[in-house]
Each structure stands twice: as C-alpha cells, then as structure tokens.
C-alpha cells in the first residue's frame, strides 16, 4: 500500500513542484502515471522509493517511511529509473551481486524473462549491450526480485516495437495480488491494454485517478465520420478517418479505452471529468 498525504515538494525556493499532493495506491494493480514532461512523475517515483524527501506531508510505503530507507522496505521495492546506471558486470555477476539482497528473488524467473526478451548470454557485459537490451536486463531482474512494489520510469523508452509488446506481456504476467506496479510514462500508447488503473498529473497535481473498468463505465470512447455535438461530448479529436471522441456513457454501452484520448479529455475538461467521477461510490481522489 502506498499513501501520500498533503505532500509539498520543491527543487528550488522559487518553483514549487507539489503542493498538497494526495495519492493512494492499492496492491493488485498496474497503475500508470501519465503526464506531460516536467509534471513531476519521476519525482513522485523517487519520493516513493525514498530517493528524495518531501518538505511537508507524509508518505507511507508498505507501512514504512521511505526517507528512512530501511532494508525491510528497500528489499520490497524495485525502481527502474529512466536513465540506467553504467554496469561493468556481466549479467551473471550482476545477479550474483544484487540478487542476495532480495529474499524473494527467483533465478528461474530471471532466466525466463531474459529468454523472453531474447537476451541469450549471461556472460554478456551489461555495459556493452544496447540501451534497449540493458533496459530489458534490468526489467527482467526487477520482475524476478518479486518485490511488492515495482516502480518503472518511462520503461518503454528505447525499446523496439516487438520489445514493447514483450514488456507488456511480461509485466502483466508478473502482477500479483500483493504487488503494486507503478509505471510512469508520457508515451501513453505503450501502456495500452497493460495498465488497469490510470493516474493523470496536470499542473503538478493528481487530477485523475481511476480504475480502467470505472472509466469505461462512465465514459464512452467512440469514432464517427461526423463530429457529434451535444452536452455529453467531452472531447473530440479529428484524424484522417474522421473523429475520435469521448462522451459521457449514459447508456452503459461498452467501449475500448483509448488512453491518449482519455488523457487529452482530462487535460481539456478536467472540471467536468471530476464531476462525473465524483458521483461514483468508489471515489479514489
């Protein structure tokens, strides 16, 4: 469980990043944090992992205060930053060095993930691999640690198209009831059909935090040759085929969630979205 209450944070005195930030994340879900560049997505992940400390407010991760960086908390967190550390070890030695720190690390799982990612030799020097391959090694290791919290910052950056699909498949298969996966990205399409909870940041605030099933229950994602008008239409976007739109789901019709459309809708129509979702019982923000 991750609880963030009234958090304030700034990198400098003049530029406040977070003011009164609130967020609650429950296990058993793959949460996707979406936001424009500079919204504070990476900062949020760093705060959760205890790499930076809030100036005010409270953060609780699995019952621990991240700033204390206690081993019992750290062994349950795997954080993959966007920029990777230069590792001069072979994959085999990397496992030998870091795996003993994680009590639930599973060697077979790690080998399985490496195979899935088509990284063959354990003797390969991590530093000599391409950026994408390096990322795959770290991701495979992270998932094999079986930590309760997995934080991935822009994990699909640098991955080729087949690897993105492999990443989605592996991440989805690694989800367990007690595990929280938090993925930050600005490439929203990469998380399509992977995440089951969407968090949207705008103006350094969490403006949207919903489970995907609630989203499609409340919103209708449709395509039309003509642009629909009406009060229920929340957002419309023209493309070569016609119009993609998001409207209020009044009929309970099922539609496929389009994360990019949702993201744009929330940014354009934030107040109305808030009203729509504040009516439901399982309100999450």
């Amino acid at each position: 469980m991750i609880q963030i209450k009234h958090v304030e944070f700034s990198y400098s005195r003049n530029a406040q990043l977070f003011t009164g930030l609130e967020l609650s994340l429950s296990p058993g879900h793959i949460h996707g944090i979406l936001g424009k560049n500079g919204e504070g997505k990476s900062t949020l992940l760093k705060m959760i992992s205890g790499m930076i400390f809030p100036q005010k407010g409270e953060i609780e991760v699995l019952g621990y205060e991240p700033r204390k960086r206690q081993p019992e908390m750290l062994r349950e967190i795997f954080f993959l930053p966007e920029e990777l550390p230069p590792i001069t070890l072979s994959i085999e030695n990397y496992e030998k060095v870091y795996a003993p720190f994680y009590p639930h690390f599973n060697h077979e799982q790690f080998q399985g993930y490496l195979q899935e990612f088509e990284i063959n030799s354990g003797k390969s020097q991590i530093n000599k691999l391409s950026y994408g391959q390096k990322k795959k090694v770290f991701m495979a290791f992270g998932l094999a640690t079986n930590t309760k919290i997995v934080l991935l910052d822009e994990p699909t950056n640098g991955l080729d198209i087949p690897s993105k699909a492999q990443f989605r498949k592996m991440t989805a298969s690694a989800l367990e009831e007690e595990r929280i996966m938090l993925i930050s990205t600005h490439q929203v399409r990469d998380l399509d059909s992977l995440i089951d909870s969407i968090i949207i940041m705008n103006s350094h605030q969490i403006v949207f935090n919903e489970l995907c099933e609630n989203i499609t229950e409340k919103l209708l994602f449709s395509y039309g040759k003509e642009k629909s008008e009406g009060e229920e239409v929340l957002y419309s976007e023209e493309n070569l085929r016609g119009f993609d739109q998001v409207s209020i789901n009044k009929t309970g019709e099922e539609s496929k969630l389009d994360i990019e459309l949702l993201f744009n809708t929330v940014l354009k129509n934030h107040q109305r979205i808030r009203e729509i979702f504040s009516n439901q019982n399982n309100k999450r923000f």
Partner: protein
Amino acid sequence: MNQKFSLKRIGLLLRRYFIENQNYELYLWSILTIVFMIFRNGNSASAILIVTGALYAVRFFKVFNFAPNGIQYLLIPATQLEKTISVFLLNTVYFILMFTVVFSVGNVIGNLLEQLIFSTSDTVALQFFQSSKSFEFNIQGLKNIWISFGVFAAIQAIFTLGSLYFKRNAILKTLLSLFVVAVALGILEYFIFKITFGSVTETLKALNAGDFVWDENIFPKALTETWKIFWTISGYLFIPFCWIVSYFRLTEKEI
C-alpha cells in the same frame, strides 16, 4: 534478520564491491607492487600511502556524481550504517592491509632482483612507516606505526567525507576546503596570539612549533599539559567524527 544491523548485509556489500571492482583492484595492487619493487624506502611508501589512500577513499561515494548510480546504491537493501561501515572497512582496514602486503611483496621481489642483477647484498626493508632501516619492534616503533596509521585513517576519513559533500572533483575540492580551514584557523590563531600575548612571532617561537615544548616563562605548565591532552583527545575523536558526519550525510542524501 536484524533490521538495524546485519553482518550478513555488510558481507554482501563487501562482496558486491569486490565483484564490481575486481579489475580495478587487480590493476591497483599490481601497479603498486611494481612501484615498491623500485621505491623501497619508508618515506616514499608513506607518501604513496597517503596519495593512493586519498584517491581510493574518494571513489566510494563517486556513485553520487551520476544520479542512476546513486539511486542504485541507495536502493541496495542495507542500512546507511552498514553502508558506512563497509566503506570504512574497505578504505581504511582493507586498504592498509593490502598496502602492507603489497609493500612487503614488492620489497622482497625488488630486493631479490637487485641481488640477482647487481649482486648487491642489501637487507630487505619491510616497514613502510619507518624512514630508517633500523626499525625495531618496541614501544616507540609501535607508537610511530600507530601515529602513521592515525594520519592515514584521518586522511581517509576526510576524503570520504569530501566525496559525500562534493559531487565533482572531490579531491580538489576537499584539498581546497582543507586549505580554507587551515587559513581560517591561522587567522584565528594570529588574532588570539596578538590579543593575548602581543607578539605573534615571539609566541610562535615560545611554542617551539608543535612539539609541546613550550617556553615555561610565557606559558604555565598546566596550560601546556591541558593543551597537550586537548590535542590528543581531538586527534582521536577527529576520525570517528568524520565518519559519523559521513553517516549522517549519507542518511540525508537525496538524488
């Protein structure tokens, strides 16, 4: 498993260091062995010890120069105390032990080669803390070793702390900071002498450098004794003080 302190985790941290730095360690000690085959006197060894020791010490927290390295280090599931202790063990205890071994091996090999090539019959000098070859295993000899070790340990502690404070060019910035502190203390000393005794030159002369052989006409014996005790205690406390500050600095480190 103890959550506050675990020897197993310290062991894992040390193992991590040796696996990650096996090439560096191999090159460093091989080069030093060759160096000691050539320079086989205590004076050069002491100078090499101080310089290489400082260089060795600043490497440990270099990880914070590059954020992803720092993140990886801070995320290792071990307490900051365990991380500090592992760094202390490596750059003070392990370094001095390896240095002694390498100095001795280098000396023996160098001496043998010299005997073989130049047919000399010099004895092997196996003590790098002593500049004289007539070192004897007695109280004074051990005291000298203890003092030399203290100087080395203090330098290691200062440079470790420096590497935690300064992101880049830690050696240069640490040296600069030491210089600034020395100048500040010098100015303070100047004014204290000037105000208390009137003449700085005369006072320094009476102090007879740092040997605590102070002129009893100017300084009462009790003051000399107190000063001596103060410096001895400060000397002993300085090293743990630096390490404690390093520990807190590591605890508060943000990336």
